[in-house]
C-alpha cells in the first residue's frame, strides 16, 4: 500500500538494532540463512528435546563448556548448574549462541584454512579493496551524481544514516517537506529522519537477489552482508515497500 510512516520505519530500524545486541554477541559468523524461512525438521529446536537434553546430562554439572574462542567453533548450550531448571525458549536462543571449545573435532589448521576461505568468498560479490572493505554505491533520486560508502566503516543503522545525511545534505538544502516546512537536517531522534522528514525520501537497497528492500528490516550484520547498492528514493516511488 502506501509507504510506512517515518515513525514505523524508525522503530523498525531501532528494533533491528536491539535484536542485534541480544542475538549476536559473537557476530563474526552471523549466518545469513538464520532468518530464512524453512521447514523445521521434526525434533529440531523443540522444547521437548531441550528437556531430554537435560535428562541426558544428568548430575551435578552442566555438560557443555562455555568459552569464547576462535572462529568456526560450534554453538552449543550453556552450562546448567541446576539441572532441574529448564531453560526457557529465550534462554535457549541466547545460550545456543555460546561456543563450545574444540567441537566439532576439526584440527586448527583445517579450521583456519576454511575460515580464511570463507571470508575471502563472502566478499566476492561486492567490490572490495582487498582488505575487507565493502563499498556500495548510493544514489539519490534527483541528485546529479552518486556516492560510494564503505559499509564496514559503520557499526549500526544510525551510524550509516548519519553519514548518508551528511553526504547528501547538499542535495536537500532548499527542499521542502510536504507540508511546506523546510526539511530539518538534525533531528534529535534519528539523523535520517531529518533527511527524510516529511516523508519525501525513503532509504532502500538492492540485496544479493536483486530485490529492492527497505533499509532497516534486517539485523545490521545481515544487511552489510547482503547489500549491493543503496538508493534514496522518493517516497512516492516507494509504494509497496515495508511492512503494513
Amino acid at each position, binding site marked *: 500500500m502506501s509507504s510506512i510512516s517515518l515513525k514505523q520505519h524508525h522503530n523498525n530500524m531501532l528494533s533491528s538494532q536491539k535484536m542485534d545486541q541480544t542475538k549476536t554477541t559473537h557476530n563474526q*559468523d552471523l*549466518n545469513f*540463512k538464520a532468518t530464512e524461512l*524453512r521447514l523445521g*525438521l*521434526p*525434533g*529440531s529446536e523443540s522444547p521437548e*528435546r531441550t528437556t*531430554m*537434553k537435560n*535428562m*541426558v*546430562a*544428568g*548430575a*551435578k*554439572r552442566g*555438560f*557443555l*563448556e562455555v568459552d569464547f*574462542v*576462535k572462529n*568456526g567453533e*560450534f*554453538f*552449543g*548450550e550453556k552450562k546448567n548448574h541446576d539441572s532441574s531448571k529448564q531453560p526457557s525458549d529465550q534462554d535457549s536462543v541466547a545460550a545456543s549462541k555460546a561456543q*563450545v*571449545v*574444540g*567441537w*566439532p*573435532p*576439526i*584440527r*586448527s*589448521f*583445517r579450521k583456519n*584454512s*576454511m575460515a580464511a*576461505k*570463507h571470508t575471502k*568468498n563472502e566478499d566476492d560479490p561486492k567490490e572490495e579493496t582487498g582488505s575487507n572493505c565493502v563499498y556500495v554505491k548510493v544514489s539519490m533520486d534527483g541528485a546529479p551524481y552518486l556516492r560510494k560508502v564503505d559499509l564496514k566503516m559503520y557499526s549500526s543503522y544510525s551510524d550509516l544514516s548519519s553519514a548518508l545525511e551528511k553526504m547528501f545534505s547538499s542535495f536537500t538544502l532548499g527542499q521542502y517537506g510536504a507540508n511546506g516546512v523546510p526539511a530539518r537536517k538534525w533531528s534529535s531522534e534519528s539523523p535520517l529522519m531529518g533527511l527524510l522528514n516529511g516523508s519525501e525520501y525513503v532509504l532502500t537497497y538492492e540485496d544479493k537477489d536483486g530485490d529492492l528492500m527497505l533499509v532497516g528490516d534486517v539485523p545490521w550484520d545481515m544487511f552489510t552482508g547482503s547489500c549491493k547498492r543503496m538508493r534514496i528514493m522518493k517516497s512516492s516511488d516507494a509504494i509497496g515497500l515495508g511492512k503494513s
Partner: protein
Amino acid sequence: MTDSGSTDPTRIPSLPEVFLKRTFSLINSTSDRNSLSLVCKDWYNYERLTRRHVSIRNCYAVSPEIVAARFPAIRSVSLKGKPRFSDFNLVPEEWGADVQPWLSVFVTAYPLLEELRLKRMSVCDDSLEFLAMNFDAFKALSMLSCDGFSTIGLEAIATHCKNLTELDIQENGVADVGGDWLGFFPENLTSLEVLNFANLGNEVSFDVLESLVSRSKSLRVLKVNQKVSLDQLRKLLVLAPQLTELGTGTFSGDLVSSSVNELESAFSKCGNLQTLSGFWDPSLLYIPALYPVCGGLTFLNLSYSVLGADELEQILTHCKRLTRLWVLDTVGDKGLEAVGSHCPLLEELRVYPDDPLDQQSGVSESGLVAVSNGCPKLHYILYFCQRMTNAAVVTVAQNCPDFTHFRLCIMKPHEPDYLTNEPMDEAFGAIVKTCVNLQRLSVSGLLTDLAFEYIGKYAKNLETLSVAFAGNSDAGMEYVMRGCPKLKRLEIRDCPFGDSALLSGLSQCESMRSLWMSACNLTMNGCKKLAQEKAMLNVEVIKDEDGDDSLANKVYVYRTVAGPRKDAPPFVVTL
C-alpha cells in the same frame, strides 16, 4: 646358551647367536619383534640389539634414557606427544611434549640417527638446529600436528643435513616468518625424495624450487604450498615426471605462459602418480588436465576443495582405481552417490565439513548409505554430518561388515535420530555387533548408556574409542572399561561419568595406553584414589584457572615406566 646336549624335549634348541642376530635383523614388524623379545632372555637381548626402529606412542610413557639403554642400535624414531584432544584446543599451550630432551639423549646414544617422525610434539627452532648440526647421518624429518617452530628452524635443516631425503611438514603450527628457507639447501644436495611444504603460508622462490626439483632425480613426493601457480606447477611436473605423490597447491588462477593442453600433457607424462592432494581453490577449467593420471590414482585428497556434486562426479568417472578419497561435504549426498557409483574399490572415505555452523548444508544419512551400497570394501570412514538416522547406520553396517575404523561425527551435540527422535544407540550397536574387526570408533549424537552397553558387549577388538556429549550415568563408561579387553586409548569429553566410572576399570587402566576425560564429573578425590591404587599410572589433572579446586575438569591418565613427569608445568598436577 646352556648345555646343548640335553635331551629334554621341552627345551628350545640353542641356535648360534650369529644366526639369531642375523635373522632378527631382517624382521621389521614391531609386533613380531615384541613377540620375539618375550621368548627368553637371550632372544630379548638379540632382539633389542638388532632393533633399528622404535615407535614411542606416548613420549611420557618412557624416558629417552630407558629407550637408549634398551635399544642401542636405533636409527629411526617415531615419537608422539600430546593427547589427541590437543588438536582441538583442549590442552593448554606449554603443556609439554618437548622434543629436546629426546634429542639431547639421542645425540650420544644414537649419533647415527637417520629418521625422526614427530606427531603432536613441541618443537622449537633451536631443537631443529640442534638436530641438523649433531646428526651427520640424518636423512628424514617428518612432523605432523607439531608446533613451536618457524621457517628459521627449517633453514637450519636445509643448511646442515647433507644427506636429507625427506622433509615433510604437514598440518603443523609453523610460523612462516618469510625469508627463503628453501634457498638454504646447498646446490650439491641431490638426495631429496620427499618434500612437503604444503601448509607454509609464504611464497618460496620459484627459481630455487625449480632448481631443487630439477636436481633431485629421486624425488617421488612433492607437495607445494598455495603460492605456487599453475604455470609453475606445470614446469615442476615437466621436471619430475617420476613423482608418485603430488600436492598441487592452489590449482587456481590462470595459465599464463602455457595452455590447458600443455598442462594436460605434463600430467600425462607422470605415469607413476598415485596420490593427488592440494586443490585449495581449484579452477574447474583446469581439472580436466588431471584426467590422464586419474586412472592410476589410489588416493585423492580433495578435502580442501569446495566442489559440488557434479564437479566431483566428473572427476570420479576417471578414477576407477581409487581406494582412498577425502572430500568436503559441499559435494552433498548427490556427490556421495557418485562415489558409490564410480569407486567400487574404495576402502577409505573421509567427508570433512565445509561450514560446521550451517545446518542446512552438508551431507546426511543418504549419502553414507549410497557409499556403503557401492563400495563393499569400505573399511575406514570419517563422516561429519548434521543429521543421521539409526536405520541408515544399520544398513551401512550390513553393507560393509569389514569396518576397522568407524568415526561418525553428528555435529550438533545430543542430536537424536532426526526421523524417529530416538537416541542413536541402535546405530552404534549395529556397528559393533556386525563389524567384528572394529579397531577404532568415534561416537556422536544423542546416546544413552545402552550404546555403551553394546560397545562393551560386542566391540572386542576395539582399541580406540572417542566419546563426546553422551551417556546417562557411570554405568555407560563402566560397560566399556569392563567389556573391551583390547582398549588402548579412551578419550571422553562432556559426559556425565564420575569417579566410580573412573575407578571401575582399574585393571583396564594398566593395559591401556592412555585415558582422557574432560568436562565430566570427576573429582580430585576420585583421581587421587586411582593414583594410589595404581603406581604404574601417571594421573595428571590439568587445572582450570578459576574453578572448583575439588573438581577435576581435565584428567589425563597414562601408563608409564618413567614415573611422574619432571617437566610438568604448574597447571599440570600429578597425583
